[in-house]
């Protein structure tokens, strides 16, 4: 395997399974994963999948509890099926680059699974995945209109003070969603917005809500809670009503500060903890020139010279690490369940970051002492899967020229095949991408 093929698999993909074909043209291989219509996670036939079915399942659970039943079996079922299907695609699939992009954008628009039960999987499937190679503004719109985000960041509770509902009750604005969209998802404080902009944008978004109890389910604009009048955000005026919010999101999505922010994050994720300014500039230019075409940005990332420079400077997040290790051991799709527990143990619970900013993305964050020891323990546990395998051959098939002779030597001296595999999986190069 040549160096470029090895880098393509770990830097842009999720690591090789030993039997994966070695692409002769790694860039073309990565490009091919950006085509529309590639399969998503395979969910069980009978699982509630769309919002009406999901809300019905939630209602069933609630009714069961109300009538003296125990637990929320539907919630458990949906949670498990959604997370294992998504993880299964990562572990056994062959679109690592696309999956990495899906994870990146899911993390960019973080929700907490534990706070938005039933609909977290739907959110990733419907608001994130269809747009990872599409337009950023479409993704932003889908995200902000999704019940998961509207619920997670409390917009459903936000009421315009001068709206009919505001006039009647004591409720008022909740700035949470508006602030995070500005700060984390789009323009960032670098754009120079102030508190007035946050308040105004929150007013723009009043009435953006959902109804899980009756048709049409999902997103619902509630004029009753909407703050009347025109609002000004970042010097732009937005009309009263749902259309004002749509216009504001289009404006923010295509703001130059947003493009710079996204370019910086993408380059930090795929190239280096300290993003090289020239690379950021390149991606920034692509986003600006294409009005936020994320597929074009992904293609440009792959063509950044800096992204192919060994040694690999990025440290795998726990999620990347778990997926890469299970791929290396050719784990069957059924272990997705176990991967879920591994993610929990290694500090990156699936779709459940501690805060809206999502999981961090630098080595400092992932190479914490306790987490490194846990990676060793976890690897040693799953290395039982590799019984009978030759660790050196596996290292060669998975890492190619990225594997150091020291690691091969240590593996060859290990006391058992399992120890040898553990040594490969805990080598410095395996922690990197």
């Amino acid at each position, binding site marked *: 395997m040549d160096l470029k093929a090895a880098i393509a698999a770990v830097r842009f993909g999720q690591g090789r399974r030993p039997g994966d074909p070695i692409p002769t043209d790694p860039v073309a291989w990565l490009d091919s994963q950006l085509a529309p219509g590639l399969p998503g996670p395979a969910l069980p036939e009978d699982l509630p999948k769309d919002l009406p079915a999901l809300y019905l399942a939630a209602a069933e659970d609630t009714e069961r509890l109300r009538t003296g039943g125990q637990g929320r079996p539907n919630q458990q079922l949906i949670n498990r099926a959604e997370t294992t299907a998504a993880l299964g695609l990562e572990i056994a699939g062959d679109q690592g680059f696309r999956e990495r992009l899906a994870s990146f954008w899911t993390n960019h628009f973080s929700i907490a699974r534990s706070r938005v039960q039933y609909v977290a999987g739907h959110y990733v499937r419907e608001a994130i995945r269809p747009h990872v190679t599409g337009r950023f503004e479409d993704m932003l719109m889908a995200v902000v209109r999704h019940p998961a985000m509207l619920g997670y960041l409390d917009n459903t509770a936000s009421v315009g003070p001068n709206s009919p509902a505001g006039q009647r009750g004591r409720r008022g604005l909740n700035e949470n969603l508006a602030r995070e969209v500005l700060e984390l998802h789009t323009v960032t404080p670098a754009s120079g917005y102030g508190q007035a902009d946050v308040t105004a944008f929150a007013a723009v978004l009043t009435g953006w809500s959902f109804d899980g109890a009756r048709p049409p389910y999902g997103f619902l604009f509630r004029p009753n809670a909407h703050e009347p009048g025109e609002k000004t955000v970042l010097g732009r005026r937005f009309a009263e009503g749902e259309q004002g919010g749509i216009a504001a999101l289009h404006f923010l999505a295509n703001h130059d500060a947003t493009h710079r922010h996204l370019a910086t994050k993408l380059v930090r994720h795929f190239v280096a903890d300290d993003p090289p300014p020239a690379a950021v500039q390149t991606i920034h230019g692509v986003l600006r020139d294409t009005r936020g075409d994320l597929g074009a940005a992904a293609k440009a990332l792959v063509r950044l010279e800096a992204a192919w420079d060994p040694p690999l400077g990025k440290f795998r997040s726990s999620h990347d690490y778990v997926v890469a290790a299970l791929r290396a051991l050719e784990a069957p799709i059924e272990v997705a369940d176990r991967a879920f527990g591994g993610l929990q143990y290694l500090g990156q619970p699936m779709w459940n970051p501690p805060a809206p900013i999502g999981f961090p993305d630098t080595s400092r964050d992932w190479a914490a*002492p306790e*987490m*490194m*020891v*846990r990676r060793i*323990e976890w690897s040693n546990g799953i290395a039982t899967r590799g019984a009978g395998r030759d660790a050196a051959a596996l290292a060669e098939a998975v890492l190619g020229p990225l594997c150091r002779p020291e690691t091969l030597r240590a593996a060859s001296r*290990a006391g058992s095949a*399992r120890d040898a595999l553990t040594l490969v999986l805990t080598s*410095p190069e395996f922690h990197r991408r």
Partner: protein
Amino acid sequence: MSAHQPAFGRRTALLGLAAALTLPRARVAFAEAPGEARLAVVLLRGGLDGLFAVQPYGEADFRELRGGLALPEPGQEGGLLDLGGRFGLHPRLTQIHAMYLANEALPIHAVAGNWRSRSHFTAQDLLESGADHLMSSGWLNRALSTLPARPGAQPTGLSVGTDLPLMMRGPTRVGTYAPRGAGTPPPDLLARIAELNAADPVAGPAIAEGLQARGYAISTLGMDATARPQPGGAFRALAIAAGRLLAQPDGPRVAAFELNGWDTHSAQANRLNAPLFQLDEGLGALKEALGEHWRRTAVLVVTEFGRTVRVNGTGGTDHGTGGVAFVLGGAVAGGKVGGAWPGLAQGRLFENRDLAPTTDLRSLAKGLLRDHLGLPGQAVARAFPGSEAAAPMAGLLRA
């Protein structure tokens, strides 16, 4: 398979196994056998230094050849536990010593398999295959195949393991406890991982600090003789669980354990403290958990090879040939050191470096299969094809 799930669930709950079995350094697999005799096989992966575990302190050349690996004689501080005036047991092996004194432990010296490979993987493969070539099934499994089921025995499909030691793979239905979740690798492997990462500016310091914080101070990594290992560990937990299962009337009759961490190329005197202690604690716990069934039990402890007689340049030993095996249990005719002792004098060593093998490991195993489990000759032959030259060893068991 689903029909067996409830049994697993019931036993898990019954025995409180779930927590005990989450530590992955040791594994156990179970199988059924006719009759009431219990057999446990413990495979020490990595190559136990037999001359360190059972030291021929009465041998003239011993101290000179072994240098720092020769421990003080019995009766001295930190000295060996005496095995009848010629051999001494490593001082961490107190429970095995107690069994020896009760005539329940039979250490056998200068044992080797039917291979002369010093490769861990080749040697383990052949040891587990029970043949002179790698097979897809293991000797213990083949020995038990085609035997009639014991009336009333629970099917042994206790759980589906992520994998199975080769020794137990084959046509016979086998249950395993595959360790799940987190657990602690042995100090030896941790030390290697720390070393492999040491030069890395990110992973190196993080791993070192993490291990320190977890209490694996430099000492437990084998560099300080004063630290006392903590009791227990994965093997003990597994042994207790396995002992309780084996003790049940409808439970399995055969258990196969694996225990890693014996490959001591450096600082062996310190590094073996913890694994020996763990082995000893586990065997003691197995005995206790078996209760009255201990008297129907034989435990065979084997490793893939012994290690060099001479100490290497880093206070350790390299891969060798003749090693030690233990046969333990209430059914065992113990209280002596078995095997023909080849001696350590000039010209007696195998290839001038290793203890010369005098006992074929297959003879030991065949003796137990025939005389302890009472298996027909056919089954024993199936277990060890082509082993006609290695006759079953007689006299391993109490009359």
